[in-house]
């Protein structure tokens, strides 16, 4: 039987906002509207959605900071409503763009303080902090006050805080928000290595960055206005919007293109001769990727040679735009 790290069944959450000036009526805002999700133990699961889609609300519910209005939410089989104390022992959370602890304390002191909230013995805490500081390349900054750190360093400290308790399930809410390329890359690499090292570790990640979700996640759920619109592996999601794929070839200039015209499985074929460059550009829309080899083997038959081959894949961005009706860029 599959063990789920996270289970959400028909999860709803509404918020009452303060009455609008001039009226006594409080408004009801729906943050989550019947969310169903199951995240398997060991999965690196991504939640993709624009601002206000409900991603952080899900994380708050799962990390025992918020009750759902209705529905069910479980972490490693523990109910968020009734078994918060059991959940807290196995989770941790890191939010991007936030600093934790006290600016007056050093990196080392801040991290030590948080280990004490998990009852970690001093020596164990020391070892774990040392190891993580090394991985995050923060060893030199260990005795520096947190308030003097750069955004990237602060976020790395925040990551260490979240991971040093070795949580079975960790919630990462936009962990690379506002970071430079190197810092973001280091954090992504760390997350990947973390989950690979122990199969029972689970990561639930929310992100704005499509590439990040594509690179890291085993499965991704696209969420908008409190509803899950799609949930699958990035590859399958991409197939949702592109049942057909596109193959582009550049070959040495040929006069006779008949060898490419009647290949079975090609839905559409166009070509363009570039006499100055001595190249012919071919574009095929395919029903099935399996016929790529037929196309490639047709090149020598035409008396030409391949210069370049490019298979144009749909991106998660395309999936997102198709499902949500707009891109993420507009929301940032």
């Amino acid at each position: 039987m599959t063990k789920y790290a996270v289970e959400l069944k028909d999860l709803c959450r509404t918020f009452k906002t303060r009455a609008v000036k001039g009226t006594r009526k409080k408004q009801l805002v729906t943050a989550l509207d019947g969310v169903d999700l199951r995240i398997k133990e060991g999965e690196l699961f991504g939640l993709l959605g624009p601002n206000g889609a409900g991603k952080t609300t899900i994380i708050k519910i799962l990390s025992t900071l918020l009750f759902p209005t209705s529905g069910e939410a479980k972490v490693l089989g523990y109910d968020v409503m009734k078994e918060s104390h059991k959940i807290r022992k196995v989770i941790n959370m890191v939010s991007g763009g936030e600093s934790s602890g006290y600016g007056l304390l050093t990196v080392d002191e801040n991290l030590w303080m948080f280990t004490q909230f998990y009852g970690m013995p001093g020596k164990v805490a020391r070892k774990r902090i040392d190891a993580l500081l090394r991985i995050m390349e923060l060893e030199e900054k260990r005795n520096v006050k947190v308030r003097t750190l750069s955004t990237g360093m602060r976020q790395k400290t925040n990551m260490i805080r979240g991971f040093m308790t070795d949580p079975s399930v960790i919630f990462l809410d936009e962990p690379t928000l506002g970071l430079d390329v190197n810092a973001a890359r280091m954090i992504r690499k760390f997350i990947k290595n973390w989950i690979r090292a122990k199969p029972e570790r689970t990561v639930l990640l929310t992100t704005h960055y499509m590439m990040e979700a594509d690179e890291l996640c085993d499965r991704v759920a696209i969420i908008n206005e409190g509803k899950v619109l799609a949930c699958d592996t990035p590859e399958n999601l991409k197939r949702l919007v592109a049942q057909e794929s596109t193959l582009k070839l550049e070959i040495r200039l040929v006069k006779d293109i008949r060898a490419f015209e009647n290949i079975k499985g090609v839905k559409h074929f166009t070509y363009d001769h570039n006499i100055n460059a001595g190249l012919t550009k071919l574009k095929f829309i395919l029903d099935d990727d399996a016929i790529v080899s037929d196309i490639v083997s047709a090149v020598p038959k035409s008396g030409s040679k391949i210069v370049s081959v490019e298979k144009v894949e749909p991106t998660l961005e395309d999936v997102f735009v198709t499902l949500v009706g707009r891109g993420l860029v507009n929301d940032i």
Partner: protein
Amino acid sequence: MAIKQNLRTMKWAAWLGWQMESNWADPFLFIVYSVAKPIAGSLILVVMYTIIAQLGGDTDPALFSFMYIGNAFFMYVMLLLWHVTWVIHDDREHFQTMRYIYIAPFNYFIYILGRTISNIVITTFGVIITLVFGVFVLGVDIPLGAINWPLFVIVMVIGLIGIMAFGLALAGISFITAKHSMGMNEGIGGIFYLFCGVIFPVSVLPGWGIAFAKILPTTYWLDMIRRTMGVGAGVDPALAGVSMTSSLLILCISTVAISIFAVLIFKLGDYIARSKGLIDMTTAY
């Protein structure tokens, strides 16, 4: 143009302060800041006085009025000084908006003054309610007909300028100091409470204390307030020899001096904070 811009800043800052701390439209806040705190503060002294009176101490109705009026008007000093420090620490560490306010194209100096205006309004309510409570419930003798209103208003305005100047100096210091729970807020007012003849005559202080009291404008301000109201005459021998005109002159000169000093301290605090990168530091622990 600059004046117009500064006035707009002050108006906006006053509105902001009103929304955040005062707002009489909220009955709870009105009760807290204009009724409960001022009246309770005065009643502490009333109970102390009454206990000693019952024990046969050296009590005199003139001392009672002296103490009551002094304490009521001292609210301006206490709350304004408290408020200025609070604004800096609140913006810097709590809302963390200091950096944005600081870089805005208006004078931060004016912003602080604006924020204190709402505080003056709410304190005025507290002072009036305390005085009314004193007159009607405790029998404090304030001869309304004998009050020299024009002089009272002049003294009030000069006094408030002096207090705001102290507030600005404190704002400069707040730029470079950490937030220590309520330490600075409640503490600084203590200097004036002790040395300015607020609840007891300055003459009770040791010699060096009297000398120090005589260089503080607040001492003369409170003395003039009492004199214009015709209350507590002759209670303080240390100031009895100073004529009304002399008092007013000293008040004016010391207010100007304090204002210049305050601007310098504010600018120095601002300069040090920027040099050391303390403008948006967080020090809460």
